[in-house]
């Protein structure tokens, strides 16, 4: 070793040409291989398992979709016509808005903190360093777009030619949206504008849903829609509409590819901080996903929101004991108005399902929409249940705390269920929906995280804690239990009694802590 001859002296002649990112990556690959702890066959087994699982899931899913497609294609009911007419106008802007928002949250081009410090902060060509991540994003978005488009249009019973066209068009549109987000990532101002565009698209998705929800009865429209839908399908060969769509698909693909290539040349304009921020969020989300913890996914996103916000106006508390906690929860929930707006916006779901004629599904749709609306309001309870220190500091028993912290979300649930009442149709069903929402959300929010410290169960994925796979279902189990009497069309007495018992038991039991 030639060390130990005094402090390091900086000699500029030691530093010559900056290496290419390819050379640096190659060096890292070689170095990592030297301390790899798995053999080629072990890696091959894992890859084989993943590919086999994907093939199985793909084949099963594909068969289900094919079966549903042939069923839907022969459907002549009024509800099928309604869905075929309206769903594309809801799905397209919704997919675009979701793509933009999700991609901007994670970058879209992202890198770990380690890569940010050890590679991106060096003079090595940044565009070249980021290109693999960029390509992965674009490819993933294209695949997701194609699969989503294919599945949705297949479920609508469209002919397979139309399904492929729709899939390609949506894939290309999402790629264009992804490229736009890469461009937006380059400055804060652009990112803000892109978020506004996603809000507009979200509003655009709600408009047809509202139309669907509040359309007049089926008698007036049955003939028109069914006729118009099936006239197109019965025509032999390509119709002018299909040709037009084909041309549009080709143009969208060309535009998507050109934009993707152009954007890849601007990757050096991405700031290191924006790239790392996305990487940190992805790492957090990956950690939560690996423990199948849906609530933790929400925690990661909420945590990032508040970190970016940084500062809000402090408000004085009011009252004492439980009243003080209720008051604080009320203010905490008001602090994120967007969530409240989205929660009320979700009211459109039961009305749209009702408007489309799927009356049997309205309670379950209302309960799921209500669950999504109310769950974010229980972040406070979630924090308390995961922090024994906080519970100790508050001086309350966790069971009592759970009751107190569920007061404001519970009141909101009652208001929400009352607003959904005209779509749900009966007071007892609305009660069941409200009970399902509050019991399900409270159970999910107060769920104990999977513990790797205790006994583990052997599985093909290695040792896992018991109950890991039931983790995502937590909360939804109570939701289904409360709605069971409605779904099985039991008498009103059962529709009230079963959810009441679930609620009582739910709040009587002390939640387990980690």
């Amino acid at each position, binding site marked *: 070793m030639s060390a*130990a001859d005094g402090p390091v002296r900086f000699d500029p002649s*030691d530093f010559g040409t900056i290496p290419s990112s390819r050379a640096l990556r190659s060096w890292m690959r070689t*170095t990592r291989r030297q301390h790899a702890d798995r053999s080629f066959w072990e890696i091959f087994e894992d890859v084989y398992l993943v590919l086999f699982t994907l093939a199985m899931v793909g084949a099963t899913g594909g068969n289900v979709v094919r079966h549903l497609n042939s069923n839907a294609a022969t459907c002549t009911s009024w509800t099928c016509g309604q869905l075929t007419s309206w769903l594309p106008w809801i799905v397209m802007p919704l997919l675009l808005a979701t793509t933009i928002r999700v991609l901007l949250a994670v970058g879209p081009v992202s890198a770990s903190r380690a890569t940010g410090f050890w590679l991106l*902060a*060096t*003079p090595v060509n*940044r565009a070249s360093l980021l290109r693999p991540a960029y390509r992965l994003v674009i490819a993933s978005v294209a695949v997701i777009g194609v699969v989503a488009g294919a599945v949705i249009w297949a479920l609508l019973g469209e002919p397979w030619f139309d399904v492929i066209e729709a899939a390609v068009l949506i894939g290309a549109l999402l790629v264009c949206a992804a490229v736009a987000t890469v461009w937006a990532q380059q400055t804060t101002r652009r990112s803000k504008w892109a978020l506004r565009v996603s809000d507009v698209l979200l509003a655009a998705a709600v408009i047809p849903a509202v139309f669907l929800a509040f359309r007049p009865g089926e008698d007036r429209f049955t003939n028109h829609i069914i006729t118009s839908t099936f006239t197109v399908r019965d025509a032999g060969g390509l119709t002018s509409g299909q040709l037009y769509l084909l041309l549009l698909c080709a143009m969208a693909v060309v535009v998507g590819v050109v934009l993707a290539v152009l954007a890849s040349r601007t990757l050096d304009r991405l700031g290191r*901080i924006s790239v790392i921020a996305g990487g940190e969020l992805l790492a957090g989300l990956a950690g939560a996903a690996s423990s199948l913890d849906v609530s933790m996914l929400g925690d990661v996103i909420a945590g990032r929101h508040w970190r970016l916000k940084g500062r809000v106006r402090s408000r004085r508390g009011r009252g004492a004991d439980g009243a003080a906690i209720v008051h604080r929860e009320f203010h905490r929930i008001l602090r994120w108005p967007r969530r409240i707006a989205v929660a009320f916006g979700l009211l459109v779901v039961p009305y749209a399902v009702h408007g489309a004629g799927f009356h049997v599904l309205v309670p379950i749709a209302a309960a799921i929409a209500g669950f999504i609306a109310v769950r974010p309001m229980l972040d406070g309870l979630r924090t308390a249940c995961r922090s024994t220190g906080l519970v100790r500091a508050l001086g309350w028993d966790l069971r009592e705390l759970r009751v107190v912290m569920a007061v404001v979300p519970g009141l909101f649930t009652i208001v929400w269920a009352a607003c959904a009442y005209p779509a749900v149709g009966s007071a007892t069903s609305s009660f069941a929906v409200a009970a399902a929402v509050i019991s399900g959300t409270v159970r999910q929010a107060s769920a104990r995280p999977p513990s790797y410290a205790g006994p583990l169960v052997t599985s093909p994925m290695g040792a896992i804690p018991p109950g890991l796979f039931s983790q995502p279902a937590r909360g939804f189990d109570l939701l289904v239990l409360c709605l069971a009497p409605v779904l099985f069309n039991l008498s009103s007495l059962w529709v009230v009694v079963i959810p009441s018992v679930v609620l009582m038991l739910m709040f009587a039991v002390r939640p387990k802590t980690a």
Partner: protein
Amino acid sequence: MSKKAAPRLAVTDLQHKYGDRPVIEGLTFTLRAGQAIALVGPNGAGKTTVLKCIVGAAEPAAGKILLDGLPIDERAEAVRRDVATLLDDLDFFPDLTAAEHLDLLARAHGNSSPEDLVDTTLHDIGLLPAADQLPGSLSSGQRRRLALATALVRPRKLMVLDEPEARLDTGGVQWLSDRLLEEKKSGTAILFASHDPALVETVADSVVTLTPLP
């Protein structure tokens, strides 16, 4: 070092806000080659924010930051080549050893055979026995030393360090003090935030005191 040389770093009327709340207002100073400026002040005064603005990790609300007379932009190759930064955003690859991290950094800066430089640096910083350890097995202090070593295996005209003495033992702080004086002698400009009066006294030519804004 000649006082007439062009400033390596010139900060003029720097402002930064968190939301509507100003954190830094009207901060102006210049730093020349071979000089050291210490940012001091209580917690929340904005020391780290100033450093983040300078290295492009935060966007100033107003003001100018010039490196060798040109607006500083962390995306520019020259800035990435010349500015050695140590903020709180350092993380390690879990599967590369301490020596490999330094090796990687030296190579990324154009040193194609940095073995001697890495060994000397590891020895200098007291990490030679831990050269083959993965970051997960290093102690907090060792990780800090490794972080400091990152500034020594690369070219640098300006060093921006946020509380470099944090988590170092007494011997480590003494080493740091000597090391920064060496850097000054070799012409490197140093801007650092610190809570250690002795380090500030020994190393800094000027002190910028920040106070929390109301």
